[in-house]
Every structure is written in C-alpha cells, then in structure tokens.
C-alpha cells in the first residue's frame, strides 16, 4: 500500500509551519505520522502537500509550571510514558501514554497528533478529559486556549481549525490523588473496545473511550464522584449521554455493560470509598 503522490516540506518552527500552510493549497501537517501515514496508505486520506512538523524540537518538552505541567504537542508517547515529572504529578497521563499501541508506535506517535486526530477509540484523549486539560491552539490569528471538554467536536474533528496548530497541552497537577485506567481489548496492541479513565481529587473526572463518535467526558458520573456517591451509583450513570455503536467487536449494550464494569474496577483500583 502506497500513498497517492504528494509534495513534502519541512517546517522548522511554529511560525514557519503556519506560513507554509498559507503558501500551499491542500496541505496537511505531519507529526509522528502514525495515524496519518496508515490512512494515506489506505488512500482514505490524501493531500497535495505534507508539512512535516515532526522536527520542530521547540514543541517537544514537559515543563513544570507550578500549578500545572505543560507538554509540547510534539512530545512523543514514549517520552510522556517515561517522564518522572509526570509520574509524580500526573500518573494517569504517563500511564495512559504507555497503553497506546506498542513500543514502536509509542516511539513515533505524538501527544498532539493523538489529540488532534480525535479518534474516539484513542487512549490519550480520555486522559486529557479526565484531567481537565487545556489545549493551546495557535493560528494565523494568534493563540487561544480551549478546555478539553470543548475540544472534541465530532468524529475525527476537533477545535483545531484548518491551518491551526495545537502547540501545547496544560494539565493541572494532581499530585497524590488516586487515578486508574481500565482498557479492555482482545490483543495487546489493539485499540480499546471500551476504556475508562478515572482521576480522583479536587475536580474528579471520568472519561470514556469508544463510547460514541467523540472521546467522551462522563459528566454525570464525574459529578457523582465529586458528590462522594458510592462506586455503584457512579457506575450507574457513567453511560449517560453516550451513543456507542455496534461493530464487529461489540454491540452497544455490551459496550455500556463494559463501561459500567470497568468503572467499578477502576474505582476499586484507586481505593475509592464514598
């Protein structure tokens, strides 16, 4: 499988990438390429020009900013997984990065690429939602910050508009708070059939993977957590607002069942007691 022909240009900075986008019609940004290249090989996606942002080193960092940690969009899953700073303050994020695909995928894929791709079956969007992250988006018109809860707008569609770049993701610190990630799949490297991310603490959050057309923040269940409801009561409302679909892996009913069971397991894992 070989992609349709395209031209290739390499961006050396954020400004350069934006300028290249303005210059070239029908262009796309290429980060780690681990969603884009497979789709181009299948010819589900084509583009006249790929603008390689994968070498913009100024967008690869994990920085302590006091009350939050800022992660550059081009930071690879692998670096997120292995970061001791994240392990200390944002255990959920580091752990979830380690659940993506396999080591080869994690060596190439980037946090920003995974979020902008916006796949409801992807792992990292659920961590961003459960952790209440903020997304920094830069375009020709300047920079804006969008909360994770407003970021995923449709199937494979996010708040990042044409020609805009996701540059940074800010995660409020969750030092010492409990968290858990329960991913259900059948083979080690697969995407989740359903997964549940749970973050306890001051602003508790529960997010679901593969329960509809976008990564899903479970607002009712998160509110139940904040109110200190028993785990079973949290699980009872966790699928509220979801629109899971039927596919070869699971029916909608089975997905809903999984979401409840995985929520109970995740809460048990954190030691949560109402």
């Amino acid at each position: 499988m070989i992609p349709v022909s395209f031209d290739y240009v390499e961006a050396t900075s954020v400004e350069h990438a934006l300028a290249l986008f303005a210059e070239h019609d029908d262009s796309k940004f290429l980060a780690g390429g681990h969603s884009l290249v497979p789709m181009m090989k299948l010819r589900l996606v084509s583009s006249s020009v790929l603008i390689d942002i994968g070498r913009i080193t100024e967008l690869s960092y994990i920085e302590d900013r006091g009350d939050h940690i800022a992660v550059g969009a081009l930071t690879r899953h692998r670096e997120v997984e292995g970061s001791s700073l994240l392990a200390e303050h944002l255990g959920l994020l580091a752990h979830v990065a380690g659940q993506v695909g396999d080591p080869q995928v994690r060596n190439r894929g980037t946090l920003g690429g995974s979020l902008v791709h916006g796949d409801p079956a992807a792992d990292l969007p659920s961590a961003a939602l459960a952790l209440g992250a903020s997304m920094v988006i830069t375009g020709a018109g300047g920079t804006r910050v969008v909360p994770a809860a407003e970021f995923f707008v449709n199937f494979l569609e996010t708040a990042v508009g044409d020609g805009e770049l996701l540059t940074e993701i800010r995660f409020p610190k969750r030092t010492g708070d409990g968290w858990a990630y329960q991913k259900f799949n059948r083979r080690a490297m697969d995407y989740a059939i359903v997964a549940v991310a749970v973050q306890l603490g001051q602003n508790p959050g529960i997010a679901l993977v593969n329960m509809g057309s976008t990564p899903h923040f479970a607002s009712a269940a998160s509110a139940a957590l904040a109110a200190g409801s028993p785990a079973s009561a949290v699980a009872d409302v966790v699928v509220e607002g979801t629109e899971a679909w039927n596919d070869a892996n699971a029916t909608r009913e089975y997905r809903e069942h999984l979401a409840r069971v995985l929520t109970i397991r995740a809460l048990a894992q954190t030691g949560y007691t109402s």
Partner: protein
Amino acid sequence: MSTVSVSVTVNGELRTHEVEPRVLLVHYLRDVLRLTGTHVGCDTSNCGACTVILDGAAVKSCTVLAVQARGGEITTIEGLAAPGEPFSAVQQGFHQEHGLQCGFCTPGMIMACTALLGENPDPTEHEIRHALEGNLCRCTGYQMIVNSVRWAAEHPDGIVPESSDAASSAPSTQGAGS
C-alpha cells in the same frame, strides 16, 4: 513528480538518494538499498516484521516515510553482524534457544529485542512480552523467543560458553511450556 534528497546513515554507511516523498522507509531499504532482510508482513502497521532501529528507537518502517528518517541513523538486521562475523548476542540467543521456525518475523523480532536490551539489559519475562507487543509470530508461540532474549541478556557478549556445547546441539527448553 517532485523528489527530495534523503541522506541517512544505514548500518554505519552514509547513503544519499533522491526519493519521492511517498516512499516508505521499508521500501527505501528493500528496493533502493536492496537490504531485503527487513520484511513486510502486514503493511498495516500491526505485525512488526518491518521493525528497524531509527536513532536508537525501534520503529515500524512500513509506517515511516523515508523522508522522515532524513539525517537519521538506521540499523537493520544486516547491520548486526557482517557476513562471517560472530552473531550479535540477540542473534546468538535466537540460534541457541530456537527463537524461530519459518523465520519471517525474525528480522523484526531481533531488532525489537535488540532495542529492548539497549534500554533494559536484564528484562523479566513479563517485560520481554510487554516489549514485544508490536511483533507477531505465527510459528513459535513466543516462548522460545522469550527464552532467546533471556539467553542474550545472560550472555551480553553473545559468546556461547564452552561447557554448553552439548546444550547448543540440544537446545535448552527451560521455561518452555508448563
């Protein structure tokens, strides 16, 4: 069609070619450099047969464009030991512990295992299995592969101890089955 100039160091040798941007790294290695040890198993990023080491990290070369490797250092299976030279520890491990049957997955498996031991020279069985999640083998059932990596971890210079000559003709099945 536009091409770009790609310079990469492959197995220690600097190579420069004009390639189309859509050329995948695996096709560059196999078709342009004629390094056919790197296999294409699935072409859908799943099987790991195409694994090579790019700048110290294992990657699936069917999912990387050759241009993305520009300026990089690549090691393929051919780069582990020159013809006539002794095997690397991982290659010797596969030989000693029968880590292969048909051999199709083996180049990718060996590169993934080599990357693993580079980061973690003494992995547990669990760590080995976790690190090989991206490599499929349709023959061995994996146990012999795990044994091969353990052999390499225990013999980092790849030298077969003299006393185990007998064992090498009747490979150890320690840890297998059960």
